[in-house]
């Protein structure tokens, strides 16, 4: 916590100093004597107008850069294939909440069982159905029914995308819903998620006996301590979160509720020991992370796996791939299928 406060203070001080220097440089560039600044409405109006214009330039510049980056990183286009049947659904869960999503079912083959189980997939904070399609359809092609559901503020689900506790509550409701024999046909339930989706899956499924396995990648351990400062320090991520309405502040109380490391600790208190949580994780959890992840750093994975004492059979790390696990997608699909099918090491 102290380290986080120190980083926050240093960043805030540096940005304030940078702001003052920019103003001073502008005064010199535009030949404005400091005396003229006081009591001159014309200068003030002009400065206001120029400031607004600068903001507009920055905003439109960001929009262009954001569009280019999305086009650049989003390598997967929709395909017309016969292996998967996808259908949009709205699920009314306990409490009257309506959660939208897309159900991907494997196409029935000659005599093959229709589905090996239900995988509930939770995508990342900046993702949507389109960006999750390539992963969930591949898992569906492998014989699982896959529900890719929308967080609050995405799709037709109402609420704010920053309501992380709400997302966890929604996933718990979905698990309850599909565990009912009428909705899930008694199929085993698996959870899959990345980034924020990994956190949501761990919180909702680790201690729930209705969930058989969890597969997560690029997820965090402590949001305030190990992720937020990276967003502040990354100008592009900061602009994205600032302009698109995002995760700029997480209170200490919320952080306790949405950080796996705090969840493990509270679970250890409830279950009566760290060993019991570690045993649960060994039985259910598989983690992946790239060493060059600059948004949710590799230290998050290290902290989670150290706390859980995860054996090598329960994780795989990559040297490259970044937060999005680019070019690692085939490996993730293989690992997920292996984990859900109960792959056991020799």
């Amino acid at each position, binding site marked *: 916590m102290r380290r986080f406060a120190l980083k926050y203070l240093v960043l805030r001080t540096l940005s304030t100093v940078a702001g003052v220097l920019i103003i001073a440089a502008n005064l010199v560039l535009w030949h404005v004597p400091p005396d003229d600044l006081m009591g001159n409405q014309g200068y003030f109006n002009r400065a206001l107008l120029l400031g607004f214009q600068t903001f507009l330039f920055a905003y439109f510049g960001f929009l262009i850069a954001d569009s280019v980056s999305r086009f650049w990183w989003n390598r997967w286009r929709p*395909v*017309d*294939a016969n292996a998967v049947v996808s259908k949009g659904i709205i699920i009314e869960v306990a409490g009257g909440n309506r959660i939208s999503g897309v159900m991907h079912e494997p196409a029935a*083959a000659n005599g*093959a069982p229709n589905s090996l189980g239900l995988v509930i997939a939770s995508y990342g904070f900046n993702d949507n159905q389109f960006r999750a399609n390539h992963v969930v359809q591949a898992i569906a092609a492998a014989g699982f029914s896959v529900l890719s559901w929308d967080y609050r503020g995405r799709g037709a689900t109402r609420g704010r995308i920053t309501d992380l506790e709400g997302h966890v509550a929604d996933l718990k409701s979905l698990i309850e819903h599909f565990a009912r024999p009428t909705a899930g046909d008694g199929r085993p339930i698996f959870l899959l998620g990345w980034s924020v989706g990994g956190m949501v899956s761990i919180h909702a499924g680790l201690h729930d006996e209705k969930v058989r396995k969890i597969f997560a990648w690029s997820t965090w351990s402590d949001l305030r301590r190990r992720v937020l400062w990276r967003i502040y320090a990354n100008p592009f991520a900061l602009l994205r979160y600032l302009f698109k309405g995002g995760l700029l502040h997480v209170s200490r109380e919320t952080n306790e509720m949405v950080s796996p490391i705090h969840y493990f600790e509270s679970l250890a208190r409830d279950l009566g020991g760290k060993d019991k949580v570690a045993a649960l994780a060994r039985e259910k959890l598989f983690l992946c992370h790239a060493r060059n992840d600059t948004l949710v750093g590799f230290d998050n994975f290290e902290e989670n796996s150290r706390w859980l004492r995860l054996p090598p059979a329960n994780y795989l790390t990559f040297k490259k791939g970044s937060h999005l696990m680019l070019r690692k997608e*085939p490996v993730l*699909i*293989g690992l997920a*299928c292996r984990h859900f099918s109960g792959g056991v*090491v020799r």
Partner: protein
Amino acid sequence: MMLAWRLEDIDFAIIGILICILLLTFIWRNFFRWDTLYGLKQRGTNQGMYRAFEPPLPRQDGAAIAVLEGAALDPRRRGTWLVQGLLAAGFRVLLLRSVGNAADAMRDARCVALVHHGSFAHKEGEVAAALAACIEGTASCITPLAVIVNEGGTPGMKAAIEGVAMAMKGDGSLRAECHLITCTKAPALDAELAGFHDTLVVRRSKASLRDAELQAIGCMLKWVGS
């Protein structure tokens, strides 16, 4: 005429940058789409007629899948996405170089996957014969299972259908269970694909499984029983 850098040239600079972005995107999408196996620290060991790759987290039964790469180019690059997916699922992968010398590897494998690329104009007959030999040879597998992965477009699909027809016995059945992953321009007819146990058919205008590779891995794992 003297060329001078003027302020108006900034327009050309912007257009140049956009063209560079497009070019880089094209390169990124086409040439750097997948990691090489070396990215997975996989070099494989030479076993004479094939190269064996060990999975990072092996399955309990130690099952192997033989992958026969039909491209003349370095097979360790062309079939990378499939090999990566199979290795991650815990299978040993035996990478073969041709149908003729594959018998040793096939005996140890649960399945043979035949990946073939490129244009099949004027050589569909040869390809069909090779496929038929592969399907016949597959019958010596532990679980006789063949998967044909066609990146040759519609002609490749026709060659695969012909290959299956050639490998059929008198009673119209195959000695091995045969699956097809293919891309095709034309809508595939159920009657044409009746020889295959199951198929993944991607409708597209070019001979490529691009953007459907992950689904292909999923189907493959379903068929071999991950």
